[in-house]
């Protein structure tokens, strides 16, 4: 155990209680040094921000809080529409679709590859004043249903392609299959 030495403690106390003499010009000399360095406001703010951003911190989190954050993350990831099988047009092999439509004013290629949106893939006449219409689009491997929409009202299947067998909507569709090998 520690035995207090009263004489030693007394000596330390006396030493600490001795008045300290400070040079009277000390304040003036310190302030003079401070004035020689002008303030750098902008750099100081940036430095402070950088320091705040890069300073390591310890984050304390309750188990419930961690669970909530994990749930939000899972919901964001799983809640997105599943487009894995049809994120087609970005890259893929080009396919040419051709149809003969005499007297047509407009022809659209519509199918699984463009969300069945008639405005997205308008077909073009191969030559002016001719009835052959064509469109070329990239397709990734998969099987796609499609049809041609003539003048916005009349559906045509592709006579050069297999017919879609399960046609529940009373308008013909065709299928195109894109292989990978």
């Amino acid at each position, binding site marked *: 155990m520690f035995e207090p030495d009263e004489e030693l403690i007394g000596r330390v106390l006396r030493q600490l209680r001795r008045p300290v003499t400070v040079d009277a010009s000390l304040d003036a000399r310190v302030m003079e040094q401070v004035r020689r360095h002008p303030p750098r406001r902008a750099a100081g703010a940036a430095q402070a921000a950088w320091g705040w951003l890069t300073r390591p911190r310890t984050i304390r989190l309750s188990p419930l809080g961690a669970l909530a954050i994990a749930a939000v993350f899972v919901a964001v990831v799983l809640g997105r529409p599943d487009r894995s099988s049809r994120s087609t047009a970005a890259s893929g092999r080009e*396919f040419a679709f051709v149809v003969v439509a005499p007297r047509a004013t407009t022809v659209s290629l519509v199918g699984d590859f463009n969300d069945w949106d008639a405005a997205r893939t308008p077909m073009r006449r191969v030559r002016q004043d001719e009835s052959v219409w064509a469109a070329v689009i990239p397709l990734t491997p998969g099987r796609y249903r499609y049809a041609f*929409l003539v003048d916005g009202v009349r559906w045509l299947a592709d006579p050069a392609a297999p017919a879609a067998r399960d046609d529940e909507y009373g308008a013909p569709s065709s299928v195109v299959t894109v292989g990978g090998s």
Partner: protein
Amino acid sequence: MTLLVAATLVALQAPAQGLDPRLQRLDSISRPIVTALVDSARAVALPTEPLVQRALEGATKRATADRIVAAVRRLALDLSHARDALGPMTSPPELSAAAAALRAGAPPATLTELRRVRPESLTVPLAVLTDLVASGVPVDSAAGAVLALAARARDADLVEFRRAVERDIALGAPPASATAAAAAAAFAAATVQVNAGAKQQRPGRP
């Protein structure tokens, strides 16, 4: 703490309420039912994109709500049966092609056998099988030919095989005979590793 609990509840409900914006094109009757079908498919890890596309096809073709719902529901069922036949690791394109093959009348056992004999993707073999049946080839003949070719033939060879069958049928050959003749030619080509699609540089054709 209250905020965290609320966030958790919202997050847990998010998948059920996450309406695909494309489904806004559906009418007010079919939209909630199709959304529920899509959510159910997602919950059991079935691909949802084919269901969305089938619903959009109906909307664009101005089908009634009843028809759209029936078509989506039937496709979801077909996708589930296709996965039963092909296994849980099957890709979405394969499942779509398999669903169409089952709908065309292919036996589930044929799909399972295809998975066993072909290590590559089954999308094209299944599509060729479906297309042959649609062309009038008896299911047994089509399944037998595709199974025989699937182990060695490349996708391009299988597509060329389908074209040959359709060409012969158009020229008047009985579908089963056309299938047998084209299968023999394709088998020989696959055996000597001739890739029917290798010469194709221009855009492909359906």
